[in-house]
């Protein structure tokens, strides 16, 4: 039995329909109409103890709703959730002692009191033994660098500081599972790195299972061996980041700048995508053709001045998955024309070859 077990869970909300105009307003008063919004639709997955799983999806995809159901805050409309052998929403009190949750856009700390006082309050609420509390506090404030602001009232903290304090607060009672909903909001690059190694540390040293949502795919790529992609309430993908690349973007792009302008030529195992001045771009499948072979065979024919091999950015691949509506996923997307961001990049790659290459480019 996995630690977290989610079986065809659906969550629907009722939203009041507001009709327009004078008659509509009048009708709203007497005969309210509602529409059902399905935030999470027949979602199933299982997470084993000790995993770090990234949960990603575009805005409004149902990520937060899932996390809230998993932490017992919301009750599923249908389906079954079982975590640590408990039903979160029904055995909420007992369950809450064993989990920690951080919602980046909301604080769990008391607004007007110093951070440390909130920690003392949580110690009492969760009945954390003094020894364990002091040990955890010392460790976390050291790892996350809370020392500078632990005596400052929460309302005076910056967003990033507050998130770090919130993460500490969620871990003081040694939970078995940590849910993180957008934990990197407002966190600077240094703290982000610190946070990442901290999460890795508590995952490995304490076997804390972590489920986190974020829009920062860089974060996911560095931290989570496994990702779940959700959109429109459906799970689109469940597997490793590496598999996403191989499944959805197996093409690489070879950009070559020749010594002289030369006519277009064809190459076995690669396709000429574009040609401009002394530069040419070839697309090739990374599982069928090796870059070295390609380069060698080109080098035999023409003198090469410069070259770069580009892999699709994980951002581009994920964007492609988001853009492709739920349920209509194509399993093979081996054409660059299906990658709009890539085409945009191709167009922007003019002039010197060093201007477009392996570097990380953000749109």
């Amino acid at each position, binding site marked *: 039995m996995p630690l977290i077990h989610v079986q065809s869970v659906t969550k629907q909300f009722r939203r009041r329909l507001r009709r327009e105009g004078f008659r509509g307003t009048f009708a709203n008063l007497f005969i309210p109409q509602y529409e059902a919004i399905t935030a999470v639709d027949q979602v199933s997955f299982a997470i084993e103890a000790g995993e770090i799983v990234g949960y990603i999806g575009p805005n409004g995809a149902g990520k937060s709703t899932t996390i*809230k159901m998993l932490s017992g*805050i*919301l009750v599923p409309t249908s389906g079954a959730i079982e975590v640590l052998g408990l039903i979160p*929403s029904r055995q909420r*009190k007992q369950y809450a002692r064993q989990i920690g949750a951080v919602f980046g856009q909301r604080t769990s700390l008391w607004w007007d009191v110093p951070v440390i006082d909130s920690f003392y309050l949580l110690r009492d609420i969760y009945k954390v033994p003094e020894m364990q509390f002091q040990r955890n506090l010392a460790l976390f404030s050291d790892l996350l660098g809370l020392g500078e602001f632990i005596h400052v009232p929460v309302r005076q903290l910056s967003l990033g500081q507050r998130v770090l304090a919130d993460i500490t607060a969620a871990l003081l009672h040694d939970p078995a599972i940590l849910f993180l909903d957008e934990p990197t909001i407002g966190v600077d690059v240094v703290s982000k790195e610190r946070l990442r190694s901290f999460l890795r540390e508590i995952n490995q040293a304490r076997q804390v299972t972590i489920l986190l949502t974020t829009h920062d795919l860089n974060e996911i790529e560095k931290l989570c061996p496994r990702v779940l992609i959700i959109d429109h309430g459906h799970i689109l993908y469940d597997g490793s980041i590496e598999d996403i690349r191989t499944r959805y973007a197996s093409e690489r792009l070879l950009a070559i700048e020749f010594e002289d302008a030369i006519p277009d030529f064809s190459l076995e195992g690669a396709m000429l995508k574009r040609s401009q001045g002394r530069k040419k771009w070839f697309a090739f499948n990374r599982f069928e053709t090796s870059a070295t072979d390609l380069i060698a065979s080109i080098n035999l024919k023409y003198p090469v001045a410069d070259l770069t091999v580009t892999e699709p950015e994980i951002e581009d691949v994920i964007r492609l998955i988001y853009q492709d509506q739920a349920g209509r996923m194509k399993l093979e997307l081996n054409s660059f024309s299906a990658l709009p961001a890539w085409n945009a990049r191709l167009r922007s790659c003019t002039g010197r070859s060093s201007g477009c290459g392996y570097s990380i480019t953000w749109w």
Partner: protein
Amino acid sequence: MYRQEFWLRILNNLVVMYGAYWLWNTLYDRQPQIFTISRGQMISYGMLAMLMGTVFYASNQVRYYLMDQVRTGAIQMDLLRPLDLLFHLLARNSGQMIFSVLTLGLPGFLAGAMFLELRPPSSLQDGLLFLLSLAPAYLVSFALNFLVGMIAVYTMNIQRIGWIYYSMLAFFSGQLVPLWFFPPFLAQMAYLLPFRCIIGIPLSIYIGKLTLGETLSALGLQALWAAALLAACQITWSRAHARLTVQGG
């Protein structure tokens, strides 16, 4: 609470209590025969009813809190804790209530006794039973506010419903007019509703209107209402939980 606020609220209490004093005194002068109790009893009842009304105002915090938490979505943080929502709010509000008794109730009582002919309870026994009856009175007030607050889970806004609750309370609790002055139909209604547990019953005990037997059965009724309403709170919450929406992300 700021210093000025403290004094202003005591002053406010005194003004309202003086209003009750003047009203019942005047009525007693005109038609003493319609009162089945003495002038002193009536004046004490009238003034204490006003005072208790403002002291019990603290239990309104429960429904304001619930409405705010649901409307802003902050309720999710309450639910993240290993605490029962009902007892969490009861603990939170008990503190506010004790504060209200100490900073409004006691000073108001002392001021009334010094300046406005507010009489001590009819006997030591009645005084103690009165204090005892305040506990279930508070629980009933808390539970009713919790139930009104639960409506926020469905409608998000309970401002207007709060006003209706407030006027029902003022009228049917016996705060404005003692229930024994009500015409039969309204009296019947008031006796079936729980509101009189909050003000009417404790004050009837205070002024010595009830015999010991009546007092004990009134206390039993209060306890029954308190238990029933708290149970209703728990059931209502477990149903509302399934319908809860966390607003704002």
